[in-house]
Every structure is written in structure tokens, then in C-alpha cells.
């Protein structure tokens, strides 16, 4: 039999004594109230005055009334009447049940407290302010939950906590492949607590389904941006609900979902503000959905991305006719679209506003198809073609001729293109072409084309030929003749180039080069850098010589003497030594901001004073893999150059 110790003190609201029926609870270690006698460990004996009933196993529950006996609807009535956000936040932290109940109360269900009679006058005015604040929530808070930290508890806490602080505007949930603890329950809490939600992104959250999204659709009418990625449980029904209830929807992204044509049709019909849509890897979506979407949003849709879908030429035909407002178009991996699709798209003459077009891995991009696009899209400014294996030199040239407004052209892994195509494009392009890039095009060889040049391409300012192994000296020299007005030059990874090809290019450039990237051009020597410094030193701002093993101190001396504007220099893995660094430091008018000597094993601790001097203007310094620089030197630099971000 347990004995009852009759301690004195008010027993009305028992703030002291054992409050945990089971002393073995781990929550025992929460701080106890000030009335507890700390030398008397909490145990089954209680200190209440109220009479209790010895009824065997019911002893624990009867010893003090707990509010937990109240059913949910009573809690609802209590929580509705909490005066403000502070009380709600405090209640949210009490227990899981309280958190769940609180988070399921909608914003408009909270009472305004004007009839309580218990409030003092000054409290009343505060309540009114809190009420106003809630009505005018702008929804500007952002929350991002990832991986293990994405849980329903956190979502419920967010739903309660953000409500009186401006409201949640943007929510991003990124699950992980292991069990994700966000379910519809959490999403429903967000829907009820955050009516001002504008942007919702759900990535890889397989436990979320239609239920959660229905609630979002019903409560969050201000939704503008929705991102559903790898949510296989979400079906057309949810999308239909969103379409009907969220008229402000402007951005929609669907990736790896079970959404089908009906969902897209509903979106097209109901979302009259839809500006941007991206659909990837949704096996149930086909021509019907795309066609109906495009025809309904003809005058509003500006950005469209279609990737890994089973659509055919029909969709492109519809696009070519109805895409009247489309400015940005991205098509990736559409195996069922053929040449005819691109031809019809271009010939439809609907894509008058198309400015930027990017195509990857579409077998339909052939000479005919691309030419039709060039002719049918008079305002096309940017074209990017990746992995278009069927485009030949002739097609590229015809396109260049047709696309009079083209400003930027980029070709990646288009292996049928050779330097014939490249030069042909440069010769035949419109007067506006400013930037040309060819990356990883294995068809490039170094045959001497032997063109007589009618006129060089004076508009080109930026030229980038990267990792095209066949590109050699003759082609580089030709480039120089064709593009005399270059400002930016990127020839990274062109291992076949030597001084013999590059020097003529430097001499042909009439305008001053501003940014030059020669990383990976292992055969270039100091001569090239000296020439560069001499001819273009007055304009040169960025120079990248990463991996140019033959570059030595002479280059650094040339740079120091001639390049007052240089702010970004990369000599990683070059053969520079302490003398070169010292030369850099001694230069006048030198305002280097970023310097990389990563992998330069000949740069030693002796460079410390030079680096300190350079550090006066440096914002970034890369000393990684500098084996000859000791840790103490690095530490000294880190201490002294407090403005500089040092990698080591």
C-alpha cells in the first residue's frame, strides 16, 4: 500500500509533484516545477489533496484529472478560442495530439474573441491587431525540408508557427529514397494552416497522394507554382482539383508522375494564367493531353519543356500552330518524334515569338527539320543542339542562312558536324550572331579547308570550341581570320593546338580579347602568353591556363608587365615557380582578384611575401594540392588575408 504524504501548498493547479504516471519514462528528465522537492524523487506517490479512488489499475488515471479526457471536438472548441499566435505556438509544443489538433484548424475557423468578456480593454486592442495581421498575411515565409528532417510533425509545426508571422509562401519538400516521413496528414495541415501558400514543390515524396493535394486545392487558392516530381501516387483527380481551384497557377512542373491526358486537359481549360509548364517522364501523357493543353493556352504559355514523353509529330504540329506566345522551348529525348514533326512545327508559322530553342537527343533534328525551324521562327535568338546525331554540315549552314535573328548558337556532341559546317555557319550567319560554341563534337578534324573569305563574321564576340579533339592548328588559324572582333575566347581541351596555330589567331584579333580560356591546351608555351599579353594586355581581364604544363615564369612576367586589368588568373598545374609569383606581386597597377596556383608543386613557402602582397586585392585564392606550401604558411595566409576566400 502506498502512503500519502500530506504536503501543504495549493493543490488547485498542481504545479509540483509527480506528473508522470510511469517513473520509468524517458521524459522524466524534463525540468520540474519550482515546488517540487528535489530530494524526493518523483514516483508513484502523489501530492494532491483531492480524494482519489483506490480502484486497482485505475489508480494512475484517477489521481488527477487530465485534459486528455476531452474528445477532439472539445479541443477544437478550446483551440479556436485561443487569443493569438503566441498561445497557439505554445500549445503546438505541448504534445503530439495538441499539435495535430491545432494544425488541423483552418485559419478562418479561429474566433475573433470579441465577445469573451474576460479580456481587459488593452488586451482587446492587441487581439484586433493580431486578427488584422492574420487577415492580411502576405505569404512571404519560405520553408525547405529535406530527407530525414521532412516529417509530418515539422509540417504541422510550420502550419501553426508561420500563421501569425506573415504566412507561409513557399514550401519545398525533398524526400529521400529511404522511408519518407511526410504523408498526406502533414500536407493537409499545411493546407489548413497556410492559405497564403504560393509555391509548393514536392520532390521524391512517394507517400503523398491525392488526399493531400485535394486539401491544398481546396484551401490554397493563391497557389502560383506547383512542382510534382516523382510522386507516383498523385493522379489526374488531384490535378483536376488543383486546376479548378487555383486560378493563379502560372508555373507547373510534372516529373515522373502518374498524371495523364485528362489532367493536362483540365489544366489547359482552367488555368488561364499558365505561363510555364515542364513535363518529364510521364508515361501516361500523350499527344491528346499535350495538344489540348497547347490549344487552350495558346495566348499565355511562354515557356514549354517536354522531356522523355511518348508524344509524336502530332504534338509538334499543334505546337507549331498554337504556340503563339511561346518564347522558350526545350525538347529533350522525344524518341517518337521524327523529322516530319520538326518540319511541321517550323512550317506551322505559329512560333513567331520563339526566342530560345533547345533540343537534346531528338532524332527528328535533321537538315530538313532544322531548316524549317529556322525559316518558321523569325525571332529565334538562341539555339542549342545537343546530341543531334543526324544534323549534317549542310543542314547547319542552311539553318544559319535562314535564321536571320540568331544571336547565339551552341552545338554539343553533334558528331556529324565538321569544321566545314562550323566555318560555313560563320560565313552564312545573320548579322547578329554574337556567340558560337561547339562542345565535344568529335567530327571536327583539322583539314585545311582553304576558303577564300568573302567577308569575316564581324558580329561574333564570343567563340568557344571545347573538347573537340580533332580541332587543330589550321582550323584555329582560320578562326582567327573569320572572327576578328572576338572578345571572349574559349579553347579548353584542344590538346592538338600548338603555338603555330594560336599565334596567328592572336594576331588576327583586332578587338582586344577580354576573356581567354586555354585550359587543357597542353602544348602551348610561354610564347603564346607573351604574345597575348603584348597584343591584348590592355583589355585582358580573365586568363585561364589550367593544365598548360609548359607555361612557366616567363608568362607570369609578361602578364605582370602588360595586363593591368587582369582580375582572374588561373595557372593551375603550370610550371610556375616562386619567381613568377614574385613577379606578379611586383607589378604596378595590378588588381588581381582571383588567383589559382592549384597543383603547382614548384610554388613553395618562399612565395609567402608575394602572396601577402597580392592578397591586398585578392578575393579568392586557390592553393589546393600545392605540395610545397606548408600548412603553417597556409594558416598565416588565412589569418592575414581575412577578406580572401582561400582554398587549401
Amino acid at each position, binding site marked *: 500500500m502506498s502512503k500519502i504524504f500530506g504536503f501543504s501548498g495549493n493543490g*488547485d*493547479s*498542481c*504545479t509540483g509533484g509527480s*506528473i*508522470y504516471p510511469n517513473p520509468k*519514462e524517458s*521524459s522524466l528528465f*524534463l*525540468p520540474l*516545477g519550482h515546488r517540487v522537492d528535489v530530494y524526493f524523487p518523483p514516483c508513484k506517490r502523489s501530492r494532491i489533496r*483531492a480524494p482519489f479512488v483506490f480502484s486497482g489499475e485505475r489508480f494512475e488515471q484517477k489521481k*488527477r*484529472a*487530465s*485534459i*486528455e*479526457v*476531452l*474528445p477532439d*471536438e*472539445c479541443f477544437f*472548441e*478550446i483551440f*479556436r*478560442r*485561443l*487569443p493569438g*499566435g*503566441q*498561445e*497557439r*505556438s*505554445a*500549445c*503546438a*509544443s*505541448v*504534445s*503530439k*495530439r*495538441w*499539435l495535430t489538433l491545432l494544425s488541423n484548424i483552418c485559419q478562418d475557423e479561429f474566433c475573433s474573441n470579441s*465577445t*469573451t*468578456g*474576460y479580456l481587459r480593454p488593452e488586451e482587446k486592442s492587441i487581439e484586433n491587431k493580431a486578427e488584422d495581421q492574420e487577415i492580411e498575411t502576405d505569404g512571404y515565409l519560405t520553408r525547405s525540408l529535406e530527407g530525414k*528532417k521532412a*516529417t509530418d*510533425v*515539422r509540417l*504541422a*509545426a*510550420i502550419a*501553426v*508557427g*508561420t500563421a501569425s*508571422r506573415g504566412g507561409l509562401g513557399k514550401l519545398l519538400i525533398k524526400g529521400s529514397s529511404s522511408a519518407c516521413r511526410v504523408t498526406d496528414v502533414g500536407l493537409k495541415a499545411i493546407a489548413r494552416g497556410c492559405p497564403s501558400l504560393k509555391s509548393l514543390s514536392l520532390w521524391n515524396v512517394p507517400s503523398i497522394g491525392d488526399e493531400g493535394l485535394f486539401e491544398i486545392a481546396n484551401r490554397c487558392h493563391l497557389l502560383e507554382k506547383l512542382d510534382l516530381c516523382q510522386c507516383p501516387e498523385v493522379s489526374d483527380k488531384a490535378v483536376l482539383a488543383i486546376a479548378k481551384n487555383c486560378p493563379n497557377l502560372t508555373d507547373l512542373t510534372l516529373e515522373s508522375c502518374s498524371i495523364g491526358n485528362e489532367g493536362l486537359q483540365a489544366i489547359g481549360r482552367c488555368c488561364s494564367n499558365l505561363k510555364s509548364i515542364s513535363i518529364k517522364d510521364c508515361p501516361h501523357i500523350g499527344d491528346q493531353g499535350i495538344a489540348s493543353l497547347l490549344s487552350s493556352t495558346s495566348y499565355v504559355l511562354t515557356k514549354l519543356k517536354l522531356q522523355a514523353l511518348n508524344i509524336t509529330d502530332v504534338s509538334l504540329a499543334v505546337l507549331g500552330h498554337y504556340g503563339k506566345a511561346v518564347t522558350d522551348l526545350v525538347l529533350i529525348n522525344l524518341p517518337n518524334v521524327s523529322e516530319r514533326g520538326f518540319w511541321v512545327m517550323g512550317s506551322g508559322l505559329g512560333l513567331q515569338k520563339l526566342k530560345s530553342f533547345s533540343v537534346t537527343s531528338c532524332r527528328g533534328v535533321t537538315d530538313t527539320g532544322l531548316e524549317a525551324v529556322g525559316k518558321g521562327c523569325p525571332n529565334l535568338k538562341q539555339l542549342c543542339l545537343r546530341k543531334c546525331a543526324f544534323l549534317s554540315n549542310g543542314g547547319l549552314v542552311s539553318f544559319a542562312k535562314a535564321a536571320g535573328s540568331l544571336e547565339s548558337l551552341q552545338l554539343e556532341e553533334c558528331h556529324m558536324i565538321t569544321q566545314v559546317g562550323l566555318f560555313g555557319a560563320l560565313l552564312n550567319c545573320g548579322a547578329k550572331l554574337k556567340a558560337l560554341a561547339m562542345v565535344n563534337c568529335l567530327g571536327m578534324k583539322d583539314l585545311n579547308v582553304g576558303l577564300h573569305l568573302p567577308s569575316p563574321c564581324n558580329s561574333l564576340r564570343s567563340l568557344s570550341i571545347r573538347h573537340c579533339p580533332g580541332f587543330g592548328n589550321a582550323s584555329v588559324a582560320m578562326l582567327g581570320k573569320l572572327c576578328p572582333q572576338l572578345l571572349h575566347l574559349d579553347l579548353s581541351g584542344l590538346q592538338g593546338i600548338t603555338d603555330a596555330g594560336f599565334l596567328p589567331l592572336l594576331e588576327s584579333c583586332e578587338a582586344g580579347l577580354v576573356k581567354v580560356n586555354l585550359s587543357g591546351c597542353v602544348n602551348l608555351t610561354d610564347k603564346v602568353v607573351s604574345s597575348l599579353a603584348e597584343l591584348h594586355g590592355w583589355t585582358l581581364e580573365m586568363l585561364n591556363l589550367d593544365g598548360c604544363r609548359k607555361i612557366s615564369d616567363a608568362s607570369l612576367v609578361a602578364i605582370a608587365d602588360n595586363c593591368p586589368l587582369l582580375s582572374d588568373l588561373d595557372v593551375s598545374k603550370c610550371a610556375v615557380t616562386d619567381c613568377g609569383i614574385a613577379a606578379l606581386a611586383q607589378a604596378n597597377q595590378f588588381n588581381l582578384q582571383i588567383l589559382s596556383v592549384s597543383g603547382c608543386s614548384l610554388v613553395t613557402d618562399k612565395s609567402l611575401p608575394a602572396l601577402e602582397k597580392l592578397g591586398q586585392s585578392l578575393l579568392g585564392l586557390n592553393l589546393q594540392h600545392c605540395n610545397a606550401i606548408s600548412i603553417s604558411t597556409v594558416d598565416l595566409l588565412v589569418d592575414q588575408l581575412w577578406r580572401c576566400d582561400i582554398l587549401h
Partner: protein
Amino acid sequence: MSSSSSPMQSTGRKLKLKSKDDETFEVEEAVAVKSQIFKYMVEDGVSNGPIPLPNVNGKTLARVLQWCQKHADPTITEDELNKYDAGFIDVDQAVLYDLLMAANYLNIEELLKLACMRVADMIKGKSPDEIRRTFNIKNDFTPEEEEEVRKENAWALGP
């Protein structure tokens, strides 16, 4: 209220109620209809025999009816009523919860509001720990969950 009844009905008719521990109460209709449940019963004419209330015990029912009586009294002033309410609801938690649940079950709006406001006032100004102590609630959050909730609601909880 049914308008086809004779004038005597509103003052004479009584309802019989039986609590869950078999206590019976007789109460005038005018008083009983404070509860929406009884109001509909009276209107629909279903008031033969004692109405069983399996969710309310005798003690609580007595209190509730006392409250209804006071509030049905046409002669009482608003000030007196407020004073009465303040005293009425100043009870210990067990009684308070019984009253709250009874008011909810019997659908007595004003009494429910009174009881809920009392609880809300008990919550006001307290930290989560204090709330748990006041109401004898177990903290069933794991440390991680508690931290998550605290982070989102830290502004309200103070240092």
C-alpha cells in the same frame, strides 16, 4: 419553438431527463431548450418519458441545469449574469472538463463557450512546460520532434 401550443405550455411543461447514473431531473422546457438537442426534441414533439443521457453524470447534469435555469431567467441583468458565470466556471479541472463535455454533448453554445474560454485563459501566457504541468499532459515528442516544433515556434516561446 412551436407556435401552435397554448400559452400555458411555455411555462408549465416540463422535461424529464435521466443521467447516466440513473438520476432523474425535471426541468421546465423554457430552461431545457438552452440545449439545442432539447430544443429540437421539443419542437419535434418527441418528449415522452425521461430522456436518457448516457454521456452525462448526475452531478454534472445538475450543475448544467442550474446554469440553464439562471440563463433562462428573464429578470436577471447582464452584469449579474457575467458575475454568475465567472463564479460558476471557477471550478477544478475535473468538474470543468465534465462541464465542457456535457455542454458539447448537449450542444449548449453559451456554456461551451464559457468553459472553453476558461480553459483558453488557463493556457494564456504559459510556456509549453507550464501547460503540461497545469493540465497533466505527457510530452510524447521525441527529442528530435520537440526540436523541430520548437524551431518553428521559437518566436512565441521566448528564451
